[in-house]
């Protein structure tokens, strides 16, 4: 965004220095721009329209700044400027001359107010300007906006651009936009029929709503063709809906997996009923916040990558606290699993209140980096980047942990100690240290999960509480002590939840999943992946 704006300012300056605009016209424009300062939001719509109609490139930066709420006027003379915040003051750029006035106090200027209507109007209007941009990506975005806006007045611009456009994607969008407009106009039947075909191939809900309208208002061949197209699109939508639902389920499953994977170690492998697990996740999320703050002050350029620093930091913070917890409390409680529940519950209260005291009780802001924002449209699917990252991140963490436990000497020792403490100890394994490190590992992993979960939810002292029950359900459902069980359990519960949600609603869906877990445990009293045979006893 900032790059774009810098370019715009340059453009303005360039335009001004070559002074390609005749003086009289410039004055008219200046008045039209300064007029934005006056009047109500409603009046401003007509003024924006007037500016758009000039077709003058000078209005592009003005309107862009207006849409972003960065257009200000000077209180003294009602002159409108493009404002950029630099530290505590503003630097103002004259939209026509391009002159820059630095160091203006907030008190001397006032913002030109804007609302959703104006923003939409500007976005749609500027898309016609962008249609002639040299950047094909911008043209594509503009074409998409035009398709979505379905504004009949854009038709001449579309035709004009189609005549010279080379980029196939842009052409496709513009044709689709034209098709939609044709269908609602009084064009001849043949044109409408081909428009229906284009829209049918395009698919999606907007095409569906255009076709629906066409089917209602037209007759004969057009109506039939539209109805057929509607059926075809609806069928596709239903299929994509199913696929989308599976993705939602997997995504929810990956969140559950993240939340429970640390617990699969501390509870599953070590048998500690770790009620403070959720707080380890929370500590991870707060570490992410702290790292983000630190990066912001130390190296603002790296802010998009602060998450990468947060991962090891969260692991260390949560791991260290887990280590202290094990050495200080839990080691006295081995062999009394139910009492670990009580002690860790107490610890969780303390950690919650500690975070509340240090960071305050309110939510903290952890922003999504650029590469985790937005969504990618894939055929009929819309996949959000943060969910995609989290999904693969969860799988990667699972893979790493699995390899650590099964393939390294450290993992071997951990398994040995948890299976037969005395035997391991007599074989020379330093069991106390292995215990402490195993617990620290589980806690550290919970901390890493907190980094990821900070991207989709609250970062508040209550964060841990909202995941703890689900985590226990996942580990128990999958089978205590079995990592694969945790993986399959998390994904199964996620998908089950998402398939129930459309029918039963979010609340009832969750209740049904819980009832399902209760019944499932009756069938398999030791979870999904239980060991069989005499070894169990």
């Amino acid at each position, binding site marked *: 965004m900032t790059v774009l704006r810098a370019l715009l300012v340059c453009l303005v300056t360039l335009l001004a220095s070559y002074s390609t605009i005749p003086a009289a016209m410039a004055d008219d424009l200046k008045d039209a721009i300064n007029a934005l300062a006056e009047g109500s939001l409603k009046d401003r719509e007509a003024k924006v329209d007037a500016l758009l109609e000039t077709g003058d490139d000078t209005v592009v930066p003005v309107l862009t700044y207006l849409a972003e709420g960065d257009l200000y006027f000077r209180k003294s003379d009602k002159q409108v400027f493009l404002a950029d915040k630099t530290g505590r003051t503003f630097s103002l750029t004259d939209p026509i001359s391009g002159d820059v006035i630095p160091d203006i106090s907030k008190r001397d200027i006032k913002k030109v107010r804007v609302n959703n209507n104006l*923003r939409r109007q500007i976005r749609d209007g500027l898309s016609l300007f962008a249609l002639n941009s040299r950047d094909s990506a911008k043209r594509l975005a503009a074409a998409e906006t035009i398709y979505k806006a379905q504004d009949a007045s854009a038709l001449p611009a579309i035709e004009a651009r189609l005549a010279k456009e080379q980029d196939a994607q842009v052409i496709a969008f513009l044709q689709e936009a034209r098709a939609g407009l044709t269908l609602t106009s009084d064009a001849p039947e043949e044109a409408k029929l081909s428009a229906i075909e284009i829209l049918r191939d395009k698919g999606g809900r907007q095409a569906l709503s255009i076709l629906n309208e066409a089917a209602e208002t037209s007759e004969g061949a057009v109506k039939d063709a539209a109805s057929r197209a509607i059926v075809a699109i609806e069928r596709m939508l239903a299929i994509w809906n199913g696929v989308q639902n599976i993705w939602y389920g997997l995504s929810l499953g990956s969140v559950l997996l993240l939340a429970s994977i640390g617990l699969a170690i501390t509870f599953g492998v070590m048998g500690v009923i770790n009620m403070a697990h959720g707080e380890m996740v929370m500590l991870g999320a707060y570490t992410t916040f702290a790292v983000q703050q630190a990066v912001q002050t130390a190296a603002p350029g790296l802010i998009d990558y602060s998450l990468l620093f947060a991962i090891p930091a969260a692991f260390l913070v949560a791991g260290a606290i887990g280590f202290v917890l094990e050495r200080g409390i839990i080691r006295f409680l081995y062999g009394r699993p139910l009492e670990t529940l009580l002690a860790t519950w107490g610890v969780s209260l303390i950690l919650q209140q500690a975070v509340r005291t240090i960071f305050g009780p309110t939510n*903290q802001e952890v922003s999504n980096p650029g590469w985790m924002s937005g969504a990618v449209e894939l055929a009929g699917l819309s996949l959000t980047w943060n969910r995609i990252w989290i999904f693969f991140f969860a799988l990667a963490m699972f893979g790493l942990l699995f390899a650590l436990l099964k393939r390294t000497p450290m993992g071997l020792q951990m398994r040995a100690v948890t299976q037969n403490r005395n035997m391991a100890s007599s074989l020379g394994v330093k069991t106390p240290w292995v215990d402490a490190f195993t617990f620290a590992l589980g806690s550290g992993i919970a901390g890493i999960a907190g980094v990821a979960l900070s991207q989709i939810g609250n970062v508040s002292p209550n964060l841990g509480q909202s995941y703890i029950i689900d985590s226990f359900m996942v580990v128990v459902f999958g089978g205590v002590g079995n990592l694969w069980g945790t993986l399959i359990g998390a994904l199964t519960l996620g998908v089950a939840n998402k398939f129930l949600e459309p029918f039963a609603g979010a609340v009832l869906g969750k209740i049904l999943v819980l009832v399902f877990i209760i019944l499932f445990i009756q069938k398999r009293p030791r979870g999904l992946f239980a060991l069989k045979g005499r070894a169990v006893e």
Partner: protein
Amino acid sequence: MSSRISHFAAALALTTSLISASAAFAEETIKVGVLHSLSGTMAISETTLKDAMLMLIEEQNEKGGLLGKKLEPVVVDPASDWPLFAEKARELIDVNDVSAVFGCWTSVSRKSVLPVFEELNSILFYPVQYEGEESQRNVFYTGAAPNQQAIPAVDYLMEQEGVERWVLAGTDYVYPRTTNKILEAYLKAKGVAAEDIMINYTPFGHSDWQTIVSDIKAFGEAGKKTAVVSTVNGDANVPFYKELANQGIKAEDIPVVAFSVGEEELAGLDTEPLVGHLAAWNYFQSVDSDANYEFIDAWHAFTKDENRVTNDPMEAHYIGFNMWVKAVEKAGSTDPDAVIDALPGISVPNLSGGYSAMMPNHHITKPVLIGEIQDDGQFDIVYETPGLVPGDAWSDYLPDSAKLISDWRAPLSCGNFNTETNECGGKGAE
């Protein structure tokens, strides 16, 4: 044996008074109860209100206190545990002998303490927007009733943004249920077809919004201008807005207007992608008035934090506290009956540059503001009702509630007077 208990009680009372008395030894004070959760799920919202109350009391003491005495705050933590609210209310009134209590956030906490205030005849100032359908002699509602928030917001969207299709999304509890019932009736009265209204409820703390947001998106792509009216509560908002942003729902296309999202909630969010989504309140930190600037400065000085935001329930406490001070001065005592009788008609400055008055139904008059979220976490006010809107205890859009009125002045002195049967006690026509 019973002596043990009374010894305990004495010890309890003694320690309480010892600790509190250390601040103002041998000086008689007027005690003010602050009943806000400082731990548990609601601490996130309520802690701020406790701080605001402490600031207001401190300011009043600097001005010389009240009736020549110092005010003394008594803070307790009901820990987001609703029955504990009732216990703590009883403790404040019975053991600490407070003159008035400022507190509660959730409806259920208010419902829980209500009988206690009635029985022990004390005063509660309740600062949060709520579902209405209540008017109790001992409670003063300084937050918004549905007609002071929801209905003006819907009007704005309908008139200014031309919205024709509505998603009413809320957390499944009484405030959203009632508000949505009222809105549904209101929208239908305005000619909105049933298929153009989608109602959706989610559990508390709902965190996975993928399905619902994509449903909203689909609902909004049917060719009519669509808006979301959100009564989603507290914790669930952050994941909700994050999902909205990520699925690319822009305010220009499908604006979301929220009644439970203020500056405090936005503090936990990156608002860049949310610019233009709306909230309806009676106060925003961005309100341009001298009183507000003073208040914000005082708040920053009190909390020693330039970044602490102010919000609507804080203003409600500001109004409520000043009303109480004025009423006590008018009555010349802190006697609950005298103060309750003195309160209706009291008018104090609010923070948006005007005056708010306590009405006989124990609700107050307020302007309704509609703001759009800005990228700095503040709201830009895009609409303000021309005059003050009086709070309506009983909604006109619910059939059984429409015939009730509330007036606590003599001779009526009734919170639920049935205008059809002319009887107090909400009696139906039988």
